[in-house]
């Protein structure tokens, strides 16, 4: 075993930092290839219907343009994710606004604008389905509202991309009986409905790619190459193999410097990458497509909107006895990644609590909206928002403080999660709750606000959320990915890491280099990281799911150990009689120095010409997952957190602002403290935006506020002091004990903030984003629920005849 040393745990300068601060980093739009043309997309102007005609206005010299339609696709007209329902270009049917129909390319970017406007498409329009409720009506038998049918009706109800049923216990019949009995005997039954809106990733660099197509001497298409802004080069390879009918080795994908992603460049590059490659194939030139902000906002993926309903049986002592949770997400027009987003939403729905009996029913529904996709958190922010709001509601119903209710139900070491996973690693949520409330001065602040609020027009509040986030792919995902990492020696004897894991700000290059340097006991600066190019890097899996540090990092550690083992015979030994065991990975001779490594590397290269060490994912022996029953080790391990938000609600302007934020998390060993803090702070800022600012306004399925002017993300002036605290409990699953970190900070802020707003105002808001107009509506018109929706799920009933409704009059809440 490697002992943690000074490199892991220190904060060296990020690998590509110099290029970034000098403006020399080359993002895709900074690159121009000789003879390059520019591409653009003709999009549908309706949400749902059939194309009846396409005409080209004669005012445009069309012979100068390259035009691609679905008929030009040499392979299958599909963008593959999990199924093939998503067309690359609409051939006949339109299923969402701004759906790609035609592609245009021209040598002059500025000629495209007029041409786009001169393509006239007529439609036979059908009414669209834009809400979860309308989609459910279609699933329930309203034929006019059926907009999606799976290819296998046995497995798919209409409009339903995916369903999950997750139940505790081993026997479903016994479980149902126990659940019913728990509800029958409960002191309290608390119900609630919670909603979350779509959220845009809003990476500052829009989606963009450059494609090239190469033909053999006889003119047949030989290969395609796509470079661009993306998270998952091998996802795009897979998409291209189908669109072009080419083998994977003929579809080369290169990641260029990527200006933010957050999930928004996980699935979508398969679309824009395929489009650019089709244009390149047809026009015979390299083709660049970069979206402007308005197009990026209407056409690319967003976080899935959701509706979650809780029905919870609770004892007088505040113990959770049983729960029924229904999670529904709006997947948009095509299935894309919705089934796996739903999976994470389902597994995280019961949160970090012990439930004697729980049932989670989850569905991903189709609507005539551009497909929703990956976004940091991947379903967990939605179901955890609901749960953590609901926990505060339960506390109120039972008459406990939010803290005490959680203390009576939190999971700990040796307990089992709702999927039956035994928490064998140490989990100290009780201690973390104590620490977070101490760091944030929670109790004193709460008392102070309770004292000050009645006389002040500005109502202050403090609230928190306790939660966890699974590291790595869900269930058997990592086993299926079967990731491979290689490390090669360069000619000057330096290790170069070969992975498809991409850098898009989160620090992949840096932390993987740290892990490699630490294992090889050489300076961080000596380690190189190859640009992800599928021609040279193996498939180390997609850069998603909080898996890079833990899963890929562990593989880098193992590949580094393997490299040392291969070099061992070439390492010099001060004492020639030393009994050195070559078979033991990563053992080094005494007094080993980085110079020894270089000497050994050069000797090896001189003798053998090249050296490549590798490591492939091996599932830990104690991880089992049952995809049918949704039981077992859902994730190798979890990161745990307690987030505390302090807010001020101005009762004159109805605006809510976050005034201080504390984020405490246990993420295993922190590889790079500065980067890790940056990840948490960035996630918290996105979470503040999710809660209070960022609203996608849809009209007939089209995002109407598709500008940074009216889609509002937090600026430097909107962000409170964010205090980041780490507990470090090393995990066996990651390098030096690291776990996943990237998505976690997206889960906690929204519920913590709305819990704080309830403390400040006495109003229980159940939906995000919560904008000033929503606060205004509830404060001035207490009978009206958020978005004027009926609130039949919003009441709290006591089975002992008490009727503890949480009507929205300001109330004194003391901790």
């Amino acid at each position, binding site marked *: 075993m490697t002992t943690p040393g000074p490199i892991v745990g220190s*904060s060296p*300068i*990020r690998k*590509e*930092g*110099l*290029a*970034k*601060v*000098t*403006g*020399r*980093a*080359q*993002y895709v*739009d*900074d690159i121009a290839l000789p003879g390059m043309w520019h591409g653009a997309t003709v999009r549908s102007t309706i949400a749902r219907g059939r194309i009846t005609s396409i005409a080209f206005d004669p005012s445009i010299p069309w012979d100068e343009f390259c035009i691609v339609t679905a008929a030009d696709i040499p392979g299958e007209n599909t963008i593959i994710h999990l199924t093939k329902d998503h067309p690359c270009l609409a051939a006949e049917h339109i299923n969402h606004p701004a759906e790609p129909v035609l592609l245009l390319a021209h040598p002059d970017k500025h000629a495209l604008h007029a041409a786009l406007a001169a393509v006239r498409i007529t439609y036979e329009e059908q009414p669209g389905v834009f809400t979860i409720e309308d989609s459910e009506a279609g699933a329930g038998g309203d034929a006019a509202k059926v907009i999606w049918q799976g290819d296998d009706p046995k497995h798919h109800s209409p409009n339903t991309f995916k369903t999950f049923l997750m139940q505790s216990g081993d026997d479903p019949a016994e479980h149902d009986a126990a659940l019913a009995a728990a509800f029958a005997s409960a002191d309290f039954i608390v119900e609630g409905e919670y909603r979350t809106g779509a959220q845009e*990733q*809003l*990476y*500052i*660099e*829009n989606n963009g790619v450059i494609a090239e197509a190469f033909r053999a001497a006889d003119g047949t298409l030989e290969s395609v190459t796509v470079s661009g802004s993306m998270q998952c080069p091998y996802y795009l390879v897979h998409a291209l193999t189908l669109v072009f009918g080419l083998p994977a080795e003929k579809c080369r994908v290169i990641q260029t*410097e*990527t*200006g*933010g*992603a*957050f999930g928004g460049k996980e699935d979508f590059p398969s679309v824009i990458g395929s489009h650019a490659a089709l244009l390149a194939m047809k026009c015979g030139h390299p083709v660049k497509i970069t979206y*402007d*902000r308005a197009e990026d906002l209407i056409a690319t993926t967003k976080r899935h909107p959701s509706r979650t309903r809780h029905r919870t049986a609770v004892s007088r002592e505040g113990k959770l006895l049983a729960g029924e949770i229904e999670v529904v997400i709006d997947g948009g027009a095509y299935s894309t990644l919705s089934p796996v987003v739903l999976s994470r939403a389902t597994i995280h729905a019961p949160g970090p609590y012990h439930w004697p009996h729980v049932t989670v029913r989850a569905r991903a529904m189709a609507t005539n909206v551009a497909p929703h996709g990956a976004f940091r958190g991947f379903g967990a922010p939605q179901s955890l928002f609901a749960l953590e709001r609901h926990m505060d509601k339960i506390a109120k119903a039972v008459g406990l403080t939010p803290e005490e209710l959680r203390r009576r139900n939190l999971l700990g070491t040796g307990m089992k999660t709702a999927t039956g996973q035994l928490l064998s690693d140490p989990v100290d949520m009780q201690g973390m709750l104590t620490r977070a409330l101490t760091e944030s001065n929670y109790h004193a602040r709460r008392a102070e606000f309770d004292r000050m609020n009645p006389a002040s027009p500005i109502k202050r509040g403090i609230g928190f959320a306790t939660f966890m986030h699974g590291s790595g792919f869900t269930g058997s995902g990592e086993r299926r990915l079967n990731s491979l990492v290689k490390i090669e020696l360069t000619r000057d004897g330096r290790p170069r890491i070969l992975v498809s894991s991409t850098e*898009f*700000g*989160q*620090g992949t290059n840096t932390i993987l280099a740290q892990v490699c340097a630490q294992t090889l006991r050489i300076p961080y600066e000596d380690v190189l990281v190859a640009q992800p190019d599928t021609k040279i890097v193996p498939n180390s899996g997609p850069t998603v799911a909080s898996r890079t540090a833990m899963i890929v990092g562990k593989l880098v550690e193992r590949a580094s150990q393997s490299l040392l083992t291969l070099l061992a015979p070439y390492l010099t030994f001060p004492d020639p009689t030393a009994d050195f065991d070559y078979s033991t990975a990563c053992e080094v001779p005494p007094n080993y120095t980085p110079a020894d490594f270089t000497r050994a590397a050069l000797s090896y290269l001189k003798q053998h010409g090249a050296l490549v060490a590798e490591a492939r994912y091996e599932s830990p022996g104690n991880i089992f997952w049952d995809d049918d029953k949704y039981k077992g080790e859902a994730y190798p391990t979890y990161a745990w957190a307690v987030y505390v938000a302090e807010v001020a609600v101005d009762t004159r302007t109805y605006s809510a602002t976050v005034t201080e934020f504390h984020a405490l998390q246990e993420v295993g060993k922190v590889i790079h403290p*500065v*980067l890790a*803090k*940056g990840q*948490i*702070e*960035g*996630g*918290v*800022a*996105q979470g503040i935006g999710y809660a209070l600012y960022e609203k996608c306004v849809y009209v007939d399925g089209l995002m109407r506020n598709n*500008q*940074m*002017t009216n889609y509002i*993300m937090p*600026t*430097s*002036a909107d*962000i409170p*002091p*964010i205090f980041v605290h780490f507990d470090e409990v090393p995990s066996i699953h990651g390098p030096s004990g690291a776990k996943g970190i990237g998505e976690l900070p997206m889960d906690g802020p929204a519920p913590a903030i709305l819990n704080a707003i309830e403390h400040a105002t006495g109003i229980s808001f159940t939906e995000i984003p919560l904008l000033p107009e929503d606060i205004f509506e509830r404060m001035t018109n207490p009978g009206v629920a958020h978005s004027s929706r009926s609130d039949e799920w919003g009441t709290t009933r006591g089975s002992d005849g008490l009727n503890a409704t949480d009507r929205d009059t300001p109330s004194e809440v003391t901790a």
Partner: protein
Amino acid sequence: MTSITLTINGERRTVNVPPMKRLLDVLREDLHLTGAKEGCGEGECGSCSVLISRDGGPAELTNSCLVPVLQAEGAQITTIEGLAPADAAKLHPIQQCFLEHGGAQCGICTPGMVLATHHLLAKYPHPTLPQIQEGLAGNLCRCTGYMRIFEAVEAAAGASKAGKPGP
């Protein structure tokens, strides 16, 4: 086409371009200075920020996506490329502080953010936190949550106390 002369990073340059072409496009396409980025094209995100001064006056932080190049005729423009030229032995202290404090993550906002910091520190050599927050509010960063950037700015202000900042 109009012939327009401007001073870019201390060097006089003449371009023949449509007069209403955006300064951002002239920088990126005609002068091949790609450090200024387009994030929104409407002056919201600040990733196209450059410093513009006229007649020796103070430099103004400007969204180059909103400026027709005609309006920049005769102006002195500093882009990220001019802050620490490629052949410079050392980075500008602001760049160094962004590196050390994690102020750059994905890097796409960084050129604009560094120039905004330069502008801020010219105005307030030792800014308070609210002054930093206000001074950078026109430059959006989606990665950092701004905390690392604030730290970098504070460190750069400290560094300028010790030595003199660059241009």
